[in-house]
């Protein structure tokens, strides 16, 4: 990553002090929920059912064992994984072709296509939820194909947000790859499709990684479609986590342990790929 510009003058004390105070407060704001999540996940049940305490009365890893049996967390995990990976893969592959066309060719309808894709990005999810729900119900009634409650149906609805987003980001990224590369390949006798696969895609790996991670993250955290389009067997983590609330109380220690377990893969992936993500964002969104 390029270094940020450094002002040649050392910042004055007033700047340094205000920086320290601000960053300290901000860190506290950011860290408190993370601390609560981690510490409560290691507390015995009576600790999370009484008044809040910063430090557990006794340290236990039992919640991490119990989360798998109180609710079928493993099944939810598998469902979330299948749905998120499929939606990501599908939208990124299709977006690569579309973005290449938009970035490298001038054709009739190009403007219309980009404007449509861009504008569907801003549409509220609820706008698509109601019709898609009814369309799925109708297809189920007339053909017997049960899209409602199936993973395939959920994947399809996830494309409503991951596809336009992937196309938009990749067009920006492809635009930042010098055309000289394509032209050199064309001179060497490469056809357009080979140029895309052998030259542009490899050069755009950081952007493709960034888009994939974003698409996966949004799908992994999606709640609206998952709450309407799933049933007992296809429920994702987003909906399934609410199962730790029983009639009388909530197993908060287990909720926190489960939240942590489902977060670790995405957070780890995000932090590992951070440098790509920032590069991808710079090329895609800022330019």
């Amino acid at each position, binding site marked *: 990553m390029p270094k*940020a510009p450094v*002002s040649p003058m050392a910042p004055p004390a007033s700047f340094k002090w205000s920086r320290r105070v601000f960053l300290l407060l*901000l860190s506290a704001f950011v860290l*408190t929920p993370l601390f609560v999540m981690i510490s409560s996940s290691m507390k015995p049940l009576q600790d999370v059912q009484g008044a809040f305490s910063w430090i557990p009365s006794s340290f236990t890893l039992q919640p991490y064992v119990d989360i798998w049996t109180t609710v079928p967390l493993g099944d939810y995990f598998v469902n979330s994984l299948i749905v998120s990976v499929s939606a990501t893969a599908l939208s990124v592959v299709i977006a690569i072709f579309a973005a290449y066309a938009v970035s490298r060719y001038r054709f009739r309808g190009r403007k219309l296509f980009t404007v*449509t894709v861009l504008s569907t990005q801003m549409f509220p999810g609820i706008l698509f939820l109601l*019709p898609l729900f*009814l369309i799925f119900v109708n297809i189920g009634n007339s053909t017997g194909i049960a899209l409602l409650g199936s993973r395939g149906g959920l994947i399809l609805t996830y494309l409503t947000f991951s596809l336009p987003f992937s196309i938009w980001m990749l067009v920006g990224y492809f635009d930042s790859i010098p055309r000289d590369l394509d032209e050199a390949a064309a001179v060497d006798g490469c056809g357009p499709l080979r140029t895309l696969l052998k030259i542009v895609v490899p050069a755009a790996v950081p952007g493709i990684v960034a888009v994939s991670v974003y698409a996966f993250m949004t799908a992994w955290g999606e709640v609206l479609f998952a709450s309407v389009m799933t049933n007992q067997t296809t429920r994702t983590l987003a909906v399934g986590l609410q199962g730790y609330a029983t009639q009388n109380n909530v197993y908060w220690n287990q909720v926190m342990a489960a939240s942590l377990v*489902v977060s670790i893969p995405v957070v780890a992936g*995000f*932090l590992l790929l951070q440098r790509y993500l920032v590069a991808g964002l710079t090329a895609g969104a800022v330019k």
Partner: protein
Amino acid sequence: MRQRLRRLRHPRGALPYLLLLPALALELLIHLVPMVVGIVMSFKQLTQFFIRDWSAAPWTGLGNYRMAVDFSAPVGQSLLNSFWTTCCFTVLSVGLSWLLGTAAAIYMQDAFRGRGILRALFLVPYALPVYAAVITWSFMFQRDTGLINHVLVDQLHLMDEKPFWLIGDNSFTALVVVSVWKSWPFAFLTLMAGLQNIPRELYEASSMDGAGVWQQIRKITLPSLRPVNQVLVLVLFLWTFNDFNTPYVLFGKSAPEAADLISIHIYQSSFVTWNFGVGSAMSVLLLLFLLLVTAVYLFLTSRRRDADA
């Protein structure tokens, strides 16, 4: 060679369309058809009796729209309330997220010890799955077992009685806090990327002229960030205005009146009271409003950009 290059830019034939074909087919399937269906639905009297076959539902013309905007009747009144709540929520959440993101990005523009760790830490709320983060906040906002009341009442003695945070008027505050917590890192990330594009010569030249840090921020950094901010504020606005995840995980299917955001309001009117016709009319109205705001915003920002040039 010149010939070839020109051909690369202006290809004859169908290749770009072939490349677009899968995307076009899917766009049709997931966006265009549902939108047309949604608009048709909004003109029908689509109650639970017609869920199995929505095309059999009777037409009602503009009836659903009239019902949604009849502010003297309960449905219209609650929609108006929800719309107003969403506007206040969006202005507060976007404003605060932008402020925190800008301050953090500027303070962390120069290298100092621990900068890398802090930057990674600040990105964690953004990377966390929304429901995991919001569930944690809802635990912190619990009246008897939560951290917030423990700190405010037991430790700082700021209040005598433990307030409820997830029902009643306080729920609005809770919603804004959670929303800012998870969206400010996006502003931070985007603005950090924007800061890297400012040429360092500008800072060097201005400090030769004797400008201090605060002056540089006001005269160089903030103006240079304007194009980034124009996109950032629009994106934050649209995300926040349409946000469903945060209120749904925080409050469940029916949010308290003070925190009844528009998307959860439409969800509630459609899936809880099973009136899809009115729900669709509300979504179409929401879309029209967002299109209008975006168009006005883009018009104003582009005019300002022309004036600058």
